[in-house]
């Protein structure tokens, strides 16, 4: 029936391998857009430094291993806390001063921060990547019959999905999350109830940054640790955020994974477009539903 359609069906293992790559990318999109959505919810700022903080997470893991011999598993905990602490300092020292100004200034300030951070790392480490080895426990792979699954990649997908769902649970189902959502709706009122909203804002920014750093640690063994790794991914994540809309936590997670998969499929069927497919989808979503698939109308 579709004899006019000249798409070569790739062999199954190649297809599944690309789908896995898509899922991996989707994991990072989901973690990063989740962090962006949390920060945007409370601070009304698009954190342009998110990519730089993701890169800092990867570098933090690399420093820990290279300087002190501290391995992957401790780094998975230490790096988010360390980079999150930097985020808290940034919020306290810089972002707080923008209260009451147009939200665009937050974008410009964090863009400046991203330039500073990435410039410093590039000055010290150049543009080429540094290798980070896969931890011993996760080396190797399993033959699933229809495809070969490298253990580390499977781990990244499962772990980031768990983190995403845990974050969703905290925000939607706990008292802390209820406070957060209330402060998003009406900060003044929540403060009147005796909640320390400025501290909540600081911690929220720190948590969003920590999520980015966690994604960075996860990415370190897959991609090379490079000063440019954040700049390359953040623009795609922005497109993911526009597609999903920032109103919903679950929306950020779903659209992150879904777009990663679509990108992986594009690599199989039409590789020339794999770099731009997400931007094309963004354009289509803007035509059909400008507020984003999961977004509330502006």
């Amino acid at each position, binding site marked *: 029936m579709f004899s006019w359609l000249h798409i070569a069906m790739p062999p199954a293992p190649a297809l599944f391998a690309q789908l896995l790559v898509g899922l991996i990318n989707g994991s990072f999109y989901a973690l990063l857009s989740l962090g962006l959505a949390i920060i945007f919810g409370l601070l009304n700022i*698009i954190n342009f430094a998110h990519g730089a903080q993701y890169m800092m997470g990867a570098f933090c893991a690399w420093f820990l291993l290279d300087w002190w011999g501290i391995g992957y598993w401790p780094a998975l905990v230490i790096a988010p806390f360390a980079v999150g602490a930097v985020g808290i300092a940034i919020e306290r020292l*810089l972002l707080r*001063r*923008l209260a009451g*100004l*147009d*939200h*665009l*200034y*937050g*974008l*410009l*300030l964090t*863009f*400046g*921060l*991203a*330039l*500073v*951070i*990435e*410039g*410093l790392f*590039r*000055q010290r480490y150049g543009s080429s990547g540094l290798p980070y080895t896969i931890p011993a426990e996760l080396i190797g792979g399993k033959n699933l019959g229809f495809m070969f699954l490298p253990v580390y990649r499977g781990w990244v997908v499962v772990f980031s999905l768990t983190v995403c769902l845990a974050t969703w649970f905290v925000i939607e189902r706990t008292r802390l999350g209820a406070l957060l959502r209330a402060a998003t709706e009406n900060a003044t009122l929540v403060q009147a109830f005796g909640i320390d909203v400025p501290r909540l804002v600081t911690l929220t920014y720190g948590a969003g940054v920590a999520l980015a750093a966690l994604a960075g640690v996860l990415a370190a063994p897959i991609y090379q640790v490079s000063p440019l790794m954040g*700049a390359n991914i953040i*623009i*795609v994540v*922005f*497109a993911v*955020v*526009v597609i999903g809309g920032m109103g919903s936590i679950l929306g950020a997670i779903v659209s992150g994974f879904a777009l990663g998969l679509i990108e992986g499929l594009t690599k199989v069927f039409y590789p*020339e477009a794999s*770099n*731009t497919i*997400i*931007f*094309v989808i*963004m*354009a289509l979503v*803007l*035509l059909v539903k*400008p507020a984003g698939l999961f977004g509330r109308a*502006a």
Partner: protein
Amino acid sequence: MSRRAGLWWSIALIALALAAPFLFYPVFVMRALCLALFACAFDLLLGYVGLLSFGHAAFYGGAAYVTAHCVKVWGFPPELGIVAGAAAAALLGSVFGWLAIRRQGIYFAMITLALAQMVAFFALQAPFTGGEDGIQAVPRGRLLGLIDLNHPLAMYYFVLAMFVVGFAIVRRAVNSPFGQVITAIRENEPRAVSLGYRAERYKLLAFVLSAALAGLAGATKCLVLQFAALSDVDWTTSGEVVLMTLVGGVGTPLGPVVGAFVIVTMENYLAQAGSWVTVIEGLIFIVCVLTFRRGIVGVIAPCLTGRAAAPPAPEPSPP
């Protein structure tokens, strides 16, 4: 601006612009003029419509590629090459603008950034853009078949003319009824709509005009430096034009020009410093946003021209 002071300043600036190639390295001034026009085009959108585009490199660099291709491969004369570049930028701008004006504020910034990234990927992958090398050795040619642009002075005055034309178009647009309407939309869009103005149309027209002028700047730059490169369409170039406008003063007539010259001069002096340039640009961004939101012209102009009260800083409209 008090009339007499303004007149004297204008005469001084015109004299400086005419004498510049004898005082400074001409290519440096030409490049700065192109970026100044680029920043003016960008500021038409940020300063007067209140829309922060983070993708203007697509129009600047896109036009540079089109002009380079037309002049080098198809043998267009320079004036036609520049027209082709600006027209391509206007066309691209009408598509991007049509998509992007559906959202405002930070979404608008993210959308323009993402759309511009598509152009960057296209420039990297397309068969005729030269990949990593870009299009090099673009001939300057003869203007109207008469004037040899390989002569530095001829090229300089041609670039100056392009800048003056572009600058005049921006000023004319801002000081026209059209300019009043877009400013009204910036200040209060629902109200402008309720007065019967079709805000979307005005925004789109401003976007296309801004894109076309950014294209004019990119096309001229392509003839000056004789190449179109990936860095022209890169997001860092989009960031740079934001920085120039912010440093000089958003929504001031000469702010983007001053900002462009400041940043280009700084880059020139720090050319050997590698990535420190990026770090310093980032620091300038942070300082400007925190303490210097009116920019150089926004702060200094009222003092120089003896005007008593400073105008309120034009802030981009809330999303």
